[in-house]
């Protein structure tokens, strides 16, 4: 096995005292940055680049440090999702849906350890995939043309109904609203301005981090203010933390989920136009349709609802390295930063990287394995520490949340305009919560809207305006079929559920979920 011997060489490069120390440092800093809203993996890596260079590190140690930060941030994003209902970065958004309810039920410790294990499984599987399949996977990524990407994004929207089952009309409204926000900015095809009102800060559209932090974090603060006006003290200390490790039966029930979500997440990562957010989203919604067709446990604190998106987003972060290394095309913001680092080190990613710089590639892959084990070892014992956050009185926690939000957003672009925009989104989020409109479809609209539109227009440019290109290849037809099934199935199932509502007691399911 040539691959295995190359990997062994990689470990020989990576397993030095200095490199292990760097990996540990990177994991720790990454987890921290991932946990802070606003400071996502891309910013984390970008901030640390100067440090790597001023330390005078060589190519391999720099890459080890920075990829540890990358993986660490993907782990860390879930912590604030679960504890505070504030996603630390955009792929961690889906983890809020079941993680926060679990924390409220006094199972924060369990949710954190479970998601830590899930992150490990996802990342481990993806790194294995990277080792064994990178060259072949590039060919799959190349099967996706603009039409395929458009249908893939349509598929994400088609399965939305499965996510927020309370009121379909409200989630449709939310998705349309998000798509509308995505239209703001320069038209990427022609460069002309849309809804920017000559405001230069809007020329590139609205950064989805601003929307996420505003809608999730700030609206939480506003709701707190509303409930506790008049100086009453926020509830504190009454939150149970519960056991720190999940029991084996829960873990066992999550294993099939991990398997499915790893595959979905990894494939989303490999496609340069899709990325980790789509990976965690699809993992969650498909998992929900597989194991919880009747909508009884997901969204109410089902451990599988925590595991699926975490496996998905970490598997995607590994998958995203495939096109980055093999084609020089970054699949996400963070891999774009890593690409820049490689270029700085005079290493040109692309089809020849594996032949020209095998030491760098295999050292990097070995470093990913090491970082992954280190993160698991680092995260599980720290669960106890993280959960202490819940013991902080809300009246102290909420100002901190507000502060972190402001600093995080200001640090992205250094513009006060964005901070004001975030406050605007905060107020909007508060109003929408009052109206019981789900927030996830809005973010999804903002996140995927642009790519969806761009790919549709690219496809139509290529076909000279012939809409037939959208049904023109076998892959497109398969994707349409999945999208249609994903859209139609929940509607029929919910009818059946209503019929059976009284007939069968769902007690068994719920008891198992508890």
């Amino acid at each position, binding site marked *: 096995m040539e691959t295995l011997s190359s990997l062994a060489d990689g470990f020989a490069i990576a397993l030095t005292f200095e490199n292990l120390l760097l990996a540990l440092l990177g994991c720790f800093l990454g987890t921290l940055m991932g946990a802070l809203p606003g400071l996502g993996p891309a910013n984390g890596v970008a901030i640390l680049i100067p440090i790597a260079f001023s330390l005078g590190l060589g190519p391999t140690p720099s890459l080890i440090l920075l990829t540890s930060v990358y993986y660490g941030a993907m782990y860390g994003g879930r912590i604030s999702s679960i504890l505070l209902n504030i996603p630390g970065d955009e792929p961690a958004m889906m983890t809020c849906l079941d993680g926060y309810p679990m924390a409220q039920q006094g199972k924060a410790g369990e949710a954190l350890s479970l998601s830590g294990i899930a992150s490990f499984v996802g990342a481990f599987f993806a790194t294995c995939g990277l080792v064994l399949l990178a060259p072949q996977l590039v060919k799959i990524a190349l099967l996706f043309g603009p039409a395929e990407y458009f249908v893939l994004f349509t598929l994400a929207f088609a399965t939305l109904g499965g996510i927020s089952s309370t009121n379909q009309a409200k989630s449709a409204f939310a998705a349309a609203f998000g798509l509308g926000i995505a239209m703001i900015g*320069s038209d*990427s095809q022609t460069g002309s301005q849309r809804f920017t009102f000559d405001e*230069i800060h809007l020329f590139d559209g609205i950064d989805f981090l601003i929307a996420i932090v505003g809608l999730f974090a700030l609206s939480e603060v506003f709701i707190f203010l509303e409930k506790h006006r008049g100086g009453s003290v926020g509830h504190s200390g009454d939150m149970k933390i519960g056991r720190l490790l999940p029991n084996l039966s829960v873990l066992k029930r999550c294993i099939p989920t991990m398997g499915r979500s790893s595959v979905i997440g990894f494939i989303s990562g490999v496609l340069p136009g899709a990325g980790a957010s789509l990976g965690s989203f699809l993992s969650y919604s498909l998992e929900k349709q597989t194991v919880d067709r009747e909508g009884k446990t997901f969204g109410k604190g089902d451990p599988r609802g925590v595991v699926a998106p975490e496996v998905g987003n970490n598997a995607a972060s590994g998958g995203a390295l495939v096109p980055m290394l093999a*084609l020089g095309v970054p699949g996400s913001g963070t891999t774009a930063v890593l690409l*820049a680092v490689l270029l700085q080190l005079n290493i040109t990613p692309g089809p020849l990287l594996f032949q020209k710089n095998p030491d760098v590639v295999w050292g990097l892959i070995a470093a990913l394995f090491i970082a992954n084990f280190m993160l698991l070892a680092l995260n599980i014992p720290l669960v106890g520490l993280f959960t202490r956050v819940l013991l902080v009185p809300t009246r102290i926690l909420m100002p901190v949340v507000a502060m972190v939000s402001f600093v995080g957003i200001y640090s992205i672009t250094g513009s006060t305009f964005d901070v004001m925009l975030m406050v605007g989104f905060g107020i909007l989020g508060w109003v929408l919560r009052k109206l019981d409109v789900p927030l996830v479809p809005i973010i999804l609209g903002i996140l995927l809207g642009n790519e969806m539109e761009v790919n549709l227009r690219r496809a139509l*440019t290529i076909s000279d305006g012939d809409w037939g290109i959208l049904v023109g290849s076998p892959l497109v037809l398969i994707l349409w079929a999945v999208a249609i099934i994903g859209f139609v199935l929940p509607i029929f199932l919910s009818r059946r559920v209503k019929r059976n509502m009284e007939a069968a007691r769902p007690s068994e399911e719920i008891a198992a979920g508890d």
Partner: protein
Amino acid sequence: MQFKHNLVAAAALAIASFAPSVGLAQDFEPENPQCIAPSNPGGGWDFICRTTARFLFDLGVMDDTMQVTNMTGGGGGVAFAHVTKERNDDNNLIVAASMSTSARIAQGIYKGASFDDVHWLATFGAEYGAIAVAANSEFQTLNDMMDAILENPKSVGIAGGSSVGSYDHIKPMLLAQAAGMEDVTQVKYVSYSGGGEAMTGLLSGSVQAVSGDFSEMLGFVESGDIRIIGILAPERLKNFPDIATAKEQGYDVIGANWRGLYMPQGASDEAKEFWKQAIMTMAESDDFKAALEAAAIEPFNNFGDDMNAFVQGTIDDVTKLSKEIGIIK
């Protein structure tokens, strides 16, 4: 600033006598120097800033490490407005720029911006545009492709890493013009976000050709995935003598994408002189030349008056072209 005129005179004298103005440059010491990259981390402008920061520090030109700030927005317009409106007298600021910067000023994409708003500091490199096709393409030469376009413009999709009207789009339109096409807007251009994505468009067979910069194609040429059928250079490149120019195939089109820097117009003359010397020192160092060669970028140096004349020239060219092609009125 009563010394200003004296210093200008001194600077003029120093340049006129070709004396190395090291003494003068030392009148200014940068404090917390900053380079703004008007793109995301990983973009071309980001590369300019980070490379400059690294070399200026390694060469000992500066004691501080230069901070690189990414300020995205409006295709560089946000950074341009930031510099002209808020930091116009900052002595410690430089900003990455390239052909896109002057093209966008020419096309009025930066609202209200003009050539005189900033101090054009230097260019240190340039690379030529190129047209590439997949390895198994039926087009063996640029002539094959242009003939196919003349016959049926819709049959050849050309991908580029930037929006409609950008320099990647202008290059194939110029070729079409040279080939005798009457309405060059008929050239089928498919816009991708970035050169790398445009390349996947070619490799996946979505489009028939790519218009881009030579350096971003190099890796794929060496791996045998694509072929360059025409490079928009005045003559064949020294290191790549097998690649034919567009000119020798009968299309007199040259497309050079320069890389350089600007700084605030209101900065002191001492500061402008310091940065000019700093970039000169960098451009002349052997390590830097080697780094450019590795990235397939040709050394291309313009400083001072040369730089002003050069940037003004590119802006005039793009304005004229864009009018001819019908992008601006």
